[in-house]
C-alpha cells in the first residue's frame, strides 16, 4: 500500500479579515437560517418570512456599501476574489432581489399557500447567494459550486406553483436541461484540471497562465466549449435557450423576473471574469486562441440576439415575450463580452477591455430596472385581471394610466429609444464595438437590425395598451407594486440625465482582480505573461 506523496497542508480556517469581504453572503446565509426558523415563532409565516428576507437583503446591501472594495483581492487561498466587478454586481443583485421581494408582496403573496413562504424565501435567498458567489469565483471548484447553488433553487422556484401544471412542466424541462448542461460543463472542467493540474484560474501557475504559455489544443477547446455550454445555459444563449420561455411562462411572475436578470447577469459576470483571465494572461497579444474565442462569442451573441428577437414576434403572452426579449438582450451583452476577449488582443490595450466590462455592467444596471419594471406591471395586471395575454391589455392606457405609462417606459427603454436609459446603454454598446476595428462592424449591423426587429414587438404592446379600446373596468394596482414600477420608470428617465456619474461608477468598478494595469503596461512589450 503506497501513499500519495502529496502534502495535505495545514487546514485552513479563515479569519475575520478574510470573511469581512464576504459579509453580504454571510448576511444572506443568516437570513436563510432566520427564514427557516420563522415558522416556529409565527403562526402564518408567509408575510413574516417576506419581511425577514427583506431585512436580511437590506443588511446584505448595506454591508456591500460598508465593506466596499476590499484591497486584498484573493480570499480563502484563491478560491474566491473580492474585486470591484464582483462588488458592483452584488450591489445590483441585492437591489434587484429587494425589488423582487417587494414585487412578491404585491403580486403572489395573497395567493401563496400559507406555509410555503419559508421555502420560497429560502430558495430565493439561496439562489441569490449562489449568484453573488458566481461573481467572485476564481477557481473551477468554486465556479461549479456557485453555479449549482444558483441553479438548484432556481429549478424548484420555477415549479413552485404546485397546482400549476405548466409550472411543474417548466421546472422539469429546466432541471433536465440544467442537469445535462452542468454535467457537460463539469466534464469539460475535469479536462481542464487534467490538462493543467490545477483548479485555480488566475495567478501564477493558474490555468489562464498555463494556457497562455502552452497554447491551444483540441482538448482545451473541448473544455472551453463545455464551459460555454454551462454558462450559456445560465445566460440562455441560443442553442441552450429552450428553457427560458417555458420557465418564464410556467413560473410565477416574480420568479420569472428574478431569473430574467439575476441568472443571466451572474452568468455574464462569471463569463467575463473567466474570459478576462484568459485574455490578460495572453499578455494582450493577438493569439489565435483569443481571436477564435472572440469570434465564437460574437457569433453566439449575434445569433442569440437574432433568434430572441425573431421568436418574440409571434408571442401572445407577455411573459413569453419578455422571455424572448431577455434572450435578445443577453445576446447584445454577449457581443460585448466577445469584445472583452478580442479588444485587448487587437489594440494591445487594457482600457478597451475595461471599457467592455464597463459597458456590460452599465447595461446590466439598466436592464435590471427595465425588466423589473416591466415584470412588475405585468404581475400587477395579472393579479387584478388574471390574464397574461397581450391582447387583454387593450385600453390599459385608460384603465390604469400609471401602469400603462410605466410599462411603456420600460418597453421603450428596452428598444433603446431616447429619453430612456436603454438608449444610453445601446449607445454604449455601439460605442464600445466601434472602438475595436473594422471586423466589428458586422456586429454593429446585426445589433442595428435587431433593434429594428425588436421595436416591432415592443411597440405592439404599447399599441394595444394605448390605441386599442376596451370597455373593461379600470384597474387599481397594489400600491407597493405600483411604487416599484414607478421607481423603475423614474430611474430609467433619471439615468439619461445622470448618465455621466453612473457610467463613471460602472467604469470605476469595471476592474478585475489579477488584471493589473500597471503590471500590464510594464510587461506589455515582452511576450512573457506578467509574473
Amino acid at each position: 500500500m503506497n501513499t500519495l506523496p502529496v502534502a495535505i497542508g495545514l487546514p485552513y480556517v479563515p479569519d475575520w479579515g478574510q470573511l469581512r469581504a464576504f459579509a453580504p453572503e454571510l448576511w444572506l446565509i443568516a437570513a436563510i437560517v432566520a427564514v427557516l426558523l420563522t415558522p416556529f415563532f409565527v403562526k402564518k409565516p408567509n408575510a413574516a418570512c417576506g419581511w425577514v428576507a427583506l431585512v436580511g437583503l437590506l443588511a446584505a446591501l448595506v454591508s456591500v456599501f460598508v465593506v466596499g472594495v476590499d484591497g486584498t483581492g484573493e480570499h480563502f487561498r484563491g478560491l474566491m476574489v473580492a474585486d470591484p466587478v464582483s462588488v458592483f454586481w452584488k450591489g445590483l443583485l441585492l437591489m434587484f432581489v429587494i425589488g423582487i421581494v417587494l414585487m412578491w408582496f404585491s403580486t403572489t403573496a395573497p395567493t401563496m399557500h400559507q406555509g410555503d413562504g419559508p421555502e420560497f424565501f429560502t430558495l430565493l435567498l439561496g439562489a441569490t447567494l449562489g449568484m453573488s458567489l458566481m461573481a467572485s469565483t476564481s477557481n473551477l471548484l468554486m465556479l461549479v459550486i456557485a453555479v449549482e447553488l444558483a441553479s438548484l433553487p432556481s429549478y424548484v422556484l420555477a415549479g413552485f406553483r404546485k397546482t400549476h401544471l405548466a409550472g411543474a412542466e417548466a421546472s422539469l424541462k429546466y432541471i433536465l436541461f440544467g442537469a445535462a448542461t452542468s454535467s457537460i460543463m463539469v466534464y469539460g472542467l475535469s479536462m481542464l484540471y487534467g490538462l493543467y493540474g490545477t483548479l485555480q484560474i488566475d495567478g501564477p501557475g493558474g490555468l489562464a497562465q498555463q494556457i497562455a504559455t502552452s497554447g491551444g489544443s483540441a482538448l482545451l477547446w473541448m473544455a472551453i466549449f463545455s464551459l460555454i455550454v454551462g454558462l450559456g445555459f445560465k445566460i440562455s444563449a441560443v442553442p441552450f435557450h429552450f428553457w427560458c420561455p417555458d420557465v418564464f411562462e410556467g413560473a410565477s411572475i416574480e420568479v420569472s423576473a428574478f431569473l430574467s436578470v439575476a441568472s443571466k447577469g451572474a452568468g455574464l459576470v462569471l463569463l467575463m471574469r473567466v474570459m478576462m483571465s484568459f485574455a490578460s494572461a495572453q499578455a494582450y497579444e493577438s493569439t489565435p486562441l483569443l481571436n477564435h474565442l472572440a469570434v465564437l462569442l460574437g457569433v453566439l451573441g449575434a445569433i442569440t440576439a437574432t433568434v430572441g428577437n425573431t421568436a418574440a414576434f409571434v408571442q401572445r403572452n407577455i411573459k413569453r415575450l419578455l422571455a424572448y426579449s431577455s434572450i435578445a438582450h443577453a445576446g447584445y451583452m454577449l457581443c460585448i463580452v466577445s469584445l472583452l476577449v478580442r479588444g485587448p488582443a487587437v489594440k494591445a490595450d487594457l482600457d478597451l477591455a475595461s471599457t467592455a466590462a464597463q459597458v456590460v455592467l452599465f447595461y446590466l444596471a439598466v436592464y435590471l430596472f427595465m425588466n423589473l419594471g416591466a415584470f412588475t406591471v405585468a404581475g400587477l395586471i395579472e393579479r387584478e385581471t388574471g390574464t397574461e395575454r397581450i391582447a387583454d391589455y387593450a385600453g390599459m392606457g385608460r384603465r390604469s394610466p400609471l401602469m400603462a405609462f410605466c410599462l411603456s417606459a420600460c418597453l421603450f427603454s428596452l428598444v433603446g429609444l431616447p429619453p430612456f436609459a436603454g438608449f444610453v446603454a445601446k449607445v454604449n454598446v455601439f460605442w464600445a464595438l466601434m472602438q475595436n476595428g473594422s471586423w466589428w462592424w458586422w456586429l454593429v449591423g446585426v445589433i442595428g437590425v435587431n433593434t429594428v426587429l425588436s421595436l416591432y414587438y415592443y411597440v405592439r404592446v404599447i399599441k394595444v395598451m394605448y390605441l386599442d379600446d376596451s370597455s373593461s373596468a379600470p384597474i387599481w394596482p397594489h400600491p407597493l407594486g405600483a411604487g416599484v414600477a414607478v421607481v423603475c420608470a423614474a430611474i430609467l428617465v433619471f439615468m439619461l440625465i445622470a448618465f455621466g456619474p453612473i457610467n463613471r461608477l460602472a467604469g470605476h468598478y469595471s476592474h478585475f482582480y489579477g488584471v493589473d494595469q500597471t503590471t500590464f503596461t510594464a510587461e506589455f512589450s515582452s511576450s512573457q505573461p506578467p509574473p
Partner: protein
Amino acid sequence: MTELALQHYLGVGAILFVIGLIGFMTRRNLIVMFLCTELMFQGVAINLIAFGRYHQNLAGQAFTVFVLVIAAAEASLALGLVVLLFRQKNTLDADAWRELRG
C-alpha cells in the same frame, strides 16, 4: 497484461459520460433520463479522481466530493418533481408534458 494507466481510467470516465449523454438524448422515460445525467456525473468523478492521482494533488478528490453532493442534490430534486408530475399524468413519458410550446 499491462498496468492500469491514466488513459484507462479516462476511457472508463469517457464511456460512462457518453453513455449518459446518448441516453439522455435518446430515451424518453424521465427516470431514465435522470439516471443518464447521474451517469454523466459519475464519469466526471472518475475523470477527476484519475487526474488527481496523475497530478499528485488532492484538488481532484475535493472536486469529486462536491460533484457527488451536487449530483445527489439534483437527483433528489428531480425525483421529487417526477413524483409530482407522475401523480398528475400517470406516465413517465417526457412527451406527455407539452403544455408549453411556441
